[in-house]
């Protein structure tokens, strides 16, 4: 029995199911409860947005150089303006700002180069970013070479210090985390035990405690002629702390790879490191992008804790500026500014990770 002898011609979709009106109807007003929530949501948004915009933009004061220039009706961005260079460079001497600017420009250039897919020589850029750039940045920022005056690390601060702590932390935590994760899954009991103890120690102690110990207690135990820079100590503490978290994230990814993958690679005669480097890690890291970026974001925000040991990162320097008697009472503006800068960086990381996930996934979706 034949049902349809001729092909049924294609017909347009019913009116009101496609296009913007269709979308609205299907998603925001597809029933009394959903419609109610839509209207309620719009109302709450209105209640929140209108005063915020009025405070931050419409009634705000932007130009001036003292508190008298602020009407106090809206936000007083004059404060942020006046302190801006401090927020960026900390107590870095202003005649040497150009050195920090070069480092900022290089940093931005590297990021842009890595993020824009069309640009070539990614591998060489990575090598430069990992080997050349840190040396160049150190020489420029710290000085003492090529007639550059020395700027001791306790004068570094602001956004510059935040970015420094965050990038060193990220670049250090990922490889250490990978090694720890592999070690924790190792067949060798000594290696495994060492990694478990290491991870559990650093995960079990609050970061504040680690920073505090690094800055106050470590010098007590070390012989007095050994004097490690406070910034270096903070960096080591931060990196090791985050690498323990990273290790657990990566271990989760490793566990999600079926055992057959390792067996197939082993059956082809690959050594352990080739199996890990060519087969297991690429799959695990891809799967772990959300977790890794999550750790990066929390690391980025955790850098604010270095305040406790007297390093002035972005938040620290904002807070220091708030206690300036000439600018008392502008804490909201200060904190909003700091929050905004942190948000920009964290949100960019989050967006980039989503882009990476999409890009890397296309290959083997069914």
């Amino acid at each position, binding site marked *: 029995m034949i049902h349809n002898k001729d092909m049924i011609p294609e017909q347009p979709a019913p009116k009101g199911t496609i296009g913007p009106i269709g979308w609205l109807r299907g998603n925001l007003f597809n029933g009394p409860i959903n419609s109610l929530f839509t209207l309620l949501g719009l109302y709450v948004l209105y209640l929140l947005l209108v005063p915020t915009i009025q405070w931050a933009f419409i009634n705000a004061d932007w130009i001036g150089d003292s508190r008298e220039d602020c009407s106090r009706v809206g936000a007083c961005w004059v404060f942020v303006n006046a302190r801006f260079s401090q927020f960026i460079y900390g107590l870095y001497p202003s005649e040497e700002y150009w050195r920090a600017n070069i480092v900022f420009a290089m940093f931005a250039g590297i990021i842009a180069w890595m993020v824009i897919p069309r640009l070539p020589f990614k591998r060489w850029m990575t090598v430069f970013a990992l080997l050349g750039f840190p040396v160049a940045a150190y020489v420029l920022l710290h000085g003492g070479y090529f007639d550059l005056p020395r700027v001791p690390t306790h004068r570094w601060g602001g956004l510059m210090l935040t970015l420094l702590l965050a990038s060193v932390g990220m670049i250090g935590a990922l490889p250490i985390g990978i090694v720890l994760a592999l070690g924790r899954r190792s067949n060798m009991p000594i290696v495994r035990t060492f990694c478990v103890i290491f991870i559990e120690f650093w995960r079990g102690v609050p970061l504040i405690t680690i920073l505090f110990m690094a800055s106050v207690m470590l010098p007590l135990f070390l012989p007095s002629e050994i004097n490690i820079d406070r910034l270096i100590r903070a960096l080591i503490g931060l990196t090791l702390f985050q690498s323990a978290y990273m290790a657990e994230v990566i271990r989760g990814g490793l566990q999600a790879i*079926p055992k*057959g*993958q390792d*067996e*197939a*690679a*082993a*059956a*082809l*005669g*690959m*050594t*352990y490191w*080739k199996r890990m480097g*060519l*087969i297991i890690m*690429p*799959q695990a890291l*891809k799967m772990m992008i959300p977790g890794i970026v999550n750790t990066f974001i929390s690391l980025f925000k955790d850098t604010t804790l270095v305040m406790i040991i007297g390093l002035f990162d972005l938040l620290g320097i904002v807070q220091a500026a708030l206690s300036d008697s000439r600018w008392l009472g502008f804490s909201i503006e200060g904190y909003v500014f700091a929050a905004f800068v942190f948000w920009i960086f964290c949100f960019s990381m989050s967006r980039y990770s989503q882009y990476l996930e999409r890009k890397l996934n296309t*290959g*083997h*979706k*069914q």
Partner: protein
Amino acid sequence: MTQAATNASDLMVEMHNVNKWFGDFHVLRDIYLEVKRGERIVVCGPSGSGKSTLIRCINHLEEHQKGDIVVGGVPLTQDVKRIEQIRRSVGMVFQHFNLFPHLSVLENCCIAPMWVQKKPRKEAEELAMQYLERVRIAEQATKYPGQLSGGQQQRVAIARSLCMHPDVMLFDEPTSALDPEMIKEVLDVMVELAEEGMTMICVTHEMGFAKTVADRVIFMDQGQIIEENAPEPFFNNPQSERTQLFLSQILGH
């Protein structure tokens, strides 16, 4: 003397009194098996009889605790270098294919020749294409495993193993995870491989395959080799009761 020497070099796989335990569980008991170069062996038996474990011991995916295994004249020891040497000469095809999902079909086939045998990329790719053509899947070379059917994936897995020019191929239930209509395309490739003289040890329930290509059929139960014979007498005149029962169960319907 001469006779013994030729015999020794002719033996591809030797397992002498191999015993293995999973914890307390005795999975392999006094396994004695010798496979000559070019011989095709089919291993069958009920599930849990240790047949997969047996062939996984040959390339040390499982470790045996007692007895000797010699592959291509090289005794299998704990030494990692020795194990890797043996694995390079032993190909393995798994029940669930185990292709690398992050690599294309071509890269799956090239990765071991390039990184284990240090072949240049171009040579490895030519070799891979040659074997992909042999398993009739060359046109899919740029796709990823996730885009292929089960039968296609298993043929790629066979090609991937062949790219290493193995002396012996181990098949661990290569058709058990396949939809019925795909079993034939994989078996056809395996039959061709057998006709070209590849040494093969296959764990399979495909009795038709066993009848056409096997030189010997081995029946295992509870970790032991119960019966071993050429296919014709094995199927027509099984000696042990357990073999008879097993054959009646899988051929009876």
